[in-house]
């Protein structure tokens, strides 16, 4: 019984949750103040908490999309480029083709899925490495978005009803948070509660083994990329609604934030292991860090909140990845304090 408790405490997700709470408490105390006009401002305000949630939705969705992909030992570098392309397509459907918003959204989601299917087909039918395929579509999708707009057209003037999705609140929370939560629950159920989703881990751990076990590996891998495409399209719609504009640079660089969140959340980049709740914790840890930093007057005065956030996110990732190793290192240290041999680590034998 005691052993179980200790194992739970040392689990990656638990450590990450503690880090998240520590971050939150720290910023709550250091990042909240009263300004000249006597108004309470900073991290501790409800508005800021909603801002954090709002800013997390797009990267959070991409991270959700990437979790099954990475669990199957794949990678999708093209998700953020696809976000940009979908934003432009949606803008074009609505503005240039004059389609009603719901139809434009539906079409965008379908095209997002098709773009994901392109990734999936190239990976499974041609047996190309996912890294190479999605590196290609990473440039291809962004390039298409830029070509369609010639890098100059920006779609704006969206109706208020659509902007509600990204800028207002519904039932007390930012509207898009509901979509994000719904997607999170759906993907959690898929990955953790269905045999279909559990097979992702088997595929990621050993595709050959999964194949011998009778799993349709190719079809499932392809489906994971289609799902990623659809979710990237959802993120594109939310992004467009939040900013009130669709431009070819939408979501530039988001794929790296999303991958960081997934890895920070404990999903193995080699596949076979990982969890959706870990990813959510990873997204939250990065978002709180990034938005919290910006509320520290000290950081603000350096005029480099963005740069600081990048630096600390990197540090957080390295600390989180090494922290699962540190206890083992320390344990070695304590049990064999007089041994002079350098403590090289044994490779992990189980996933």
């Amino acid at each position, binding site marked *: 019984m005691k052993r179980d408790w200790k194992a739970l405490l040392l689990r990656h997700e638990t450590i990450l949750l503690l880090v998240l709470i*520590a971050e939150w408490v*720290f910023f709550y*105390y*250091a*990042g909240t*103040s*009263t*300004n*000249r*006009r006597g*108004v309470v*401002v*900073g*991290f501790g*305000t409800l*508005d*800021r908490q909603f*801002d954090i949630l709002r*800013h997390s939705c797009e990267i959070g969705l991409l991270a959700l999309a990437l979790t099954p992909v990475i669990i199957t030992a794949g990678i999708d570098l093209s998700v953020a480029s696809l976000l940009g392309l979908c934003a432009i397509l949606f803008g074009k459907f609505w503005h240039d083709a004059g389609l009603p918003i719901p139809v434009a959204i539906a079409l965008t989601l379908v095209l997002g899925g098709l773009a994901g299917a392109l990734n999936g087909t190239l990976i499974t039918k041609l047996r190309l490495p996912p890294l190479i395929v999605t590196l290609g579509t990473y440039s291809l999708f962004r390039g298409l978005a830029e070509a369609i707009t010639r890098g100059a057209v*920006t779609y*704006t*003037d969206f109706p208020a009803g659509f*902007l509600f999705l990204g*800028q207002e609140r519904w039932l007390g929370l930012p509207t898009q948070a509901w979509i994000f939560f719904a997607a999170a629950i759906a993907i959690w159920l898929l990955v953790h509660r269905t045999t279909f989703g559990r097979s992702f881990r088997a595929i990621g751990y050993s595709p050959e083994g999964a194949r011998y076990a009778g799993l349709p590996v190719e079809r499932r891998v392809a489906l994971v990329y289609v799902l990623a495409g659809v979710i990237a399209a959802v993120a594109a719609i939310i*992004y467009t609604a939040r*900013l*009130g*504009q669709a*431009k070819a*640079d*939408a979501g*530039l660089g988001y794929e790296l934030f999303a991958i960081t969140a997934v890895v920070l959340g404990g999903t193995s980049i080699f596949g076979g292991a990982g969890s959706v709740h870990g990813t959510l914790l990873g997204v939250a840890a990065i978002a709180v860090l990034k*938005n919290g930093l*910006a*509320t*520290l*007057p*000290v950081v*603000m*005065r350096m*005029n*480099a*909140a*963005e740069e600081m956030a990048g630096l600390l996110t990197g540090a957080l990732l390295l600390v989180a990845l090494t922290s699962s190793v*540190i*206890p083992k290192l*320390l344990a070695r240290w304590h049990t064999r304090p007089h041994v002079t041999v350098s403590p090289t680590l044994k490779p992990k034998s189980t996933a």
Partner: protein
Amino acid sequence: MKSFLRLWLVAGLLLGSMAGAQAASSKLIVAFLPKSKGNAYFISCKAGAEKAAKELGVELLFDGPTDSNAAKQNEIVENWITLGVDVIAVAAENREGISTALRKAQKQGIKVITYDADAMPDARSFFVNQATPEGIGYTLMDEAARLLNNEGEFAMITASLTAANQREWQKHIEARLKEKYPKMKLVAVRPCDDLKDKAQSEATAMMSANPNLKLIMSICSPGVPGAAEAVKQAGKTGKVKVIGLGLPSENRRYVHEGVTDTVVLWKTEDLGYLTIYAGVALAKDELKKGAKSFKAGSLGTFEIQGDNILLGKPFSFNKANIDQFNF
């Protein structure tokens, strides 16, 4: 495990004490947002803003995207709202995109002012307008006439034949020409797509098609060095003069070589200076809607048209003064 926890605790305490150094500032905080913070144009705006902030005794925050990114501009404005600054001054990358965030700032009692590139009128109190189309058009035409002694043929390079601002400037140039300089003739108008290379080939073509051409005027910034290079390579330095709208830094070489006579732009430092003065006056309730003029420290009084504070006539950079400006 214990020492591991201790390590975390010490690190946390250290960080906490560092951040605790924040003192509730009694100074007014003015936040200044450029389109991109590494751009020499905005760095020189910042120099003027810093001067004004020092004179007024306010704290200046200067942050912006490293590239011209509308989404990042929004995030920075939202950060400033959270921090509870008093004034936000913005050069908008995207008119609509930024306006949502600016309206939110206004709702929280933050004064919003735009400069260089405006947001939606309801999302800010005033726009510090660096140059009216009329000011630009008239200054360029008058300078061309001065150089040619009011007579001769000249040609024009624009960015594109459809861009709204370019057409507006061209309209005022042609109006001034018709009104004041009957002996001058505009023989060609060619687009360069905002590319220096294209401007160069267009200028070369213009010179061979119009042997009596005396001057090339470019109303897009890459066109000025482009035309200068063409004139220089054709060996017509001095015979065909070059003027235009552009940055001093891009044209310094040609101005010193005598190829380009005049570069017209506004003083970016003054733009930053005036913006900060106006923003602070807004926060102190000294500048109100409907004001007709505004006094900004050592720069004197500026005219206000509607909700636009006018920086005034553009500034001409030439051999005598161009080395004083580093943007």
